[in-house]
């Protein structure tokens, strides 16, 4: 779920993103309440609607050892009532007022959101503020929601024949690092969770000074400030729990996972390089974002032209680099081999194509790539709901508003020599993992 959203966000950011010179990305404003709540307002007056989001800067990585799935189960229980808004009232009130309300949990953060008519915004704010401090988890609701979360894992993860591969691959890549664990928790962990585990997570992290409030839509900054004060201003902050610590990843690691699975009929290959996120190295992150676009994003990229069109070894190939992580980020390349092409042969061809692409980096090529990335940024001013997701993702991993707004400038500032150096460093110095998923013989 989360991955899909992230993919969409980055497609929006880097494929559709198009531009006008030195304009800010969103023309957003930000302020802090005295209890530490960070508020970002993205005005968009096209239609009388708004997206209201609260992002907690804690996700599944911050769970206690052995308590996998507690962050996600808590996310579900947040819809199950407070002292003043008991049981199903939260959903009932929002539905009667035409809101689309939902939430998601990821590795690094957890977010709650409502899309509503602007005239109903205060209702969402009152409800969200209420459940930030007054959550009431009954044993009955807890037992039911744990069953539902188990069914969710069965539907979303276990029913997908490729999941054993993706979950093993994650574990191989991240080892002792908390990114190794599934956001949902394993089936066994979910069944073992207790009410107190979830309650403790809530007490540790659901505090205003660990949250970002996003208001994106038909609202001005003055009104937003007044309303944020009114509904969230009186919430007292709680002592924050200790967040995940991220172990160092050894740079000389190289590992491969090859798997055959029932019901898999077509092979796929993937490889991943663990590298710095924006938070760890901002300039490097932009160098690699530009490099990824040049190397493997879209049908005009180097890998597509070489391996799909010229050599006809792959049916599709793409690279991706998402730098919005609290810990490290991953630069990845994924491909579907053409009929009769062995994964090893395609992997060798990818190595050659990558080496050639890095070697061919030139001023012209990188300027052209940057132009593509910049040309569509104006579309981001269109949809207030998408804007909220993008701003929220960046803010939740600790980017300042200035950094978010400077996206275009950061791209503009990228120099081709630095892209080349960053790419070389990526391939020479990062831990690298390779995955091959194949049909079981005779399974086709």
């Amino acid at each position, binding site marked *: 779920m989360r991955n899909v959203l992230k993919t969409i966000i980055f497609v929006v950011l880097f494929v559709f993103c198009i531009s006008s010179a030195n304009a800010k990305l969103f023309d957003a404003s930000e302020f802090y309440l005295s209890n530490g709540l960070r508020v970002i307002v993205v005005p968009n007056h096209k239609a009388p*609607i708004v997206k209201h989001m609260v992002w907690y800067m804690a996700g599944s990585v911050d769970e206690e050892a052995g308590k996998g799935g507690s962050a996600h189960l808590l996310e579900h229980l947040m819809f199950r009532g407070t002292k003043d808004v008991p049981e199903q009232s939260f*959903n009932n009130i929002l539905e009667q007022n035409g809101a689309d309300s939902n939430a998601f949990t990821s590795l690094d953060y957890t977010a709650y959101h409502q899309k*509503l008519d602007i005239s109903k915004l205060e209702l969402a704010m009152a409800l969200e503020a209420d459940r930030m401090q007054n959550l009431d988890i009954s044993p009955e609701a807890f037992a039911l929601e744990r069953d539902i979360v188990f069914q969710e894992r069965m539907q979303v993860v276990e029913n997908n024949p490729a999941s054993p591969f993706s979950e093993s691959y994650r574990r191989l890549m991240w080892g002792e690092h908390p990114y190794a664990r599934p956001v949902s928790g394993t089936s066994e962990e979910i069944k073992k969770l207790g009410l107190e585990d979830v309650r403790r997570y809530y007490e540790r992290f659901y505090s205003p000074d660990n949250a970002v409030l996003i208001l994106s839509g038909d609202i001005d900054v003055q009104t937003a400030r007044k309303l944020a004060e009114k509904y969230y201003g009186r919430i007292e902050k709680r002592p924050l729990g200790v967040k995940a610590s991220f172990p160092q990843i050894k740079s000389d690691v190289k590992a491969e996972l090859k798997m055959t699975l029932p019901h898999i009929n*077509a092979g796929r290959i993937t490889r991943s390089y663990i590298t710095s996120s924006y938070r760890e190295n901002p300039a490097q992150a932009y160098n690699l974002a530009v490099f990824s676009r040049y190397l493997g994003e879209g049908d005009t990229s180097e890998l597509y032209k070489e391996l799909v069109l010229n050599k006809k070894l792959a049916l599709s190939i793409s690279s991706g680099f998402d730098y919005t992580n609290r810990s490290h980020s991953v630069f990845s390349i994924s491909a579907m081999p053409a009929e009769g092409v062995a994964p090893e042969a395609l992997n060798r061809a990818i190595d050659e194509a990558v080496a050639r692409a890095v070697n061919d980096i030139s001023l012209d090529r990188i300027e052209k790539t940057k132009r593509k990335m910049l040309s569509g940024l104006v579309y981001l001013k269109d949809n207030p709901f998408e804007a909220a997701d993008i701003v929220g993702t960046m803010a939740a991993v600790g980017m300042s508003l200035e950094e978010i707004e400077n996206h275009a400038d950061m791209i503009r500032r990228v120099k081709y020599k630095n892209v080349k150096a960053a790419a070389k460093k990526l391939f020479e110095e990062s831990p690298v993992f390779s995955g091959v998923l194949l049909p079981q013989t005779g399974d086709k």
Partner: protein
Amino acid sequence: MYRRRRKSSGLFKYLVLLAFIGLIIYIAPQIYASRFKFNPQQILDHSVLKEKTFDSKVIEVVSPKNGIKAYLIEDNTNPIISMSFLFKNAGRASDDADKRGISDIVAALLLEGTDSMDATALKEEMEDRAIGIGFSAGLDDFTGSLITTSENQETAYALLRDILSNPRFADKELELAKQRADNAFLRQKEHPASVLGVEAARFIYGSHPYGRNPLGDRDDIMRLKRDDLLDFVRSRLTRNNLIVGVAGDISPEKLGLVLDEIFGVLQKSGSTNFVRQADVTFNRRTKNISRRTGQNISVFAAPGVARSDKNFYPLFVANHILGGSGLNSRLSVAAREKEGLTYSIYSYMSLADKSPLLQGSFSSTKENFAELTGILNREWQRFGAEGATEEEVEKAKNYLVSSYNLRFSSISNLADILMYMQKENLGLDFLQTRNDKIRKITKDDVNKAAAKYFRPENMLFVNIGEF
């Protein structure tokens, strides 16, 4: 006297004090409660942000030269323009019986170059100027879209015109498309939900074109030639079956010229395969597909109504109450919120041109599956027999009316809506009148529709998993 008075005064004071304490004991919890009790109406009444109407004037534009029509909402907030268009009856169901899947292949290959630009050159130009052009073969219609900045609009229109009039359809790209199709057929058998989708269409519709595999037929696709594709474009993508919706930074006068420029190159009319109304048997027939899965998945269907049917709005409200989006539907409350048997259970109105249906789906681990199926049947039957309460109908109407503006979040959504308004003949004033159509629906309307359509004997089921 004095003493007495004092005495009586003491008693009086005592009584007053007692009464005062009583009053405090009586009122305090109420004051306390009213201080904290969550009162949605009070919040809305004191809200500083009031209701506004979305100013969305729709104009019909007719192009000066060819008389091509389009609905337009001019919106100059951002310098961008979005266009959605469809060719009626050029979708998958109309593919020739020996070319099943051709519409999908054409949709993919239209972006693979024109006579004057190869695929890479075309895509470079689009990416460089942030022009988005896309095509897709639906069940009934063939759809397309264009998004551009005002600055690059002339290039965008010229590219779309070139794509529609001089598609390249080179052997190299056709071969790649065939290999990808081959691969897609393999992957289609991987996820149980995808297997179920293919099997459900076949089980529901049999030999009717709606029963075809959405990817088409593998052998038919492998036989396709360049001429077949050119023929498809010539005969199916014509001005006579074209519908266009546009939103964004463009004036009606300009749009008229643009319509001629882009679509003037198309044939005036062509031919397509007539798809008959589907005749579906609903007698609780059931198909179980055995497979080891994490969960069993069920798809169910019942007769529905077309968009133009007088029962559309009553059934629309009824379906929202029984199985609509969110966690408050009867199905979701009964199976998920109260019993914890499933993560998702829902129903929806499926509006295919030749077979409107009520459809739905649910899934659970195999131990829960029989109980879950029982809940669906029970709720379906009870809803048909007893209908909804006044409160439920009001709640559903409130949701449908209040959430209406959410769909105006992007100009691409607007362009889509404008296109569908024409396809379904909803009228130029639809955006202004739609909410009144919902408000007018009574509990009686809803319950008549519920009694007619929610009948357990008129259902069918396709399931996959372990039984």
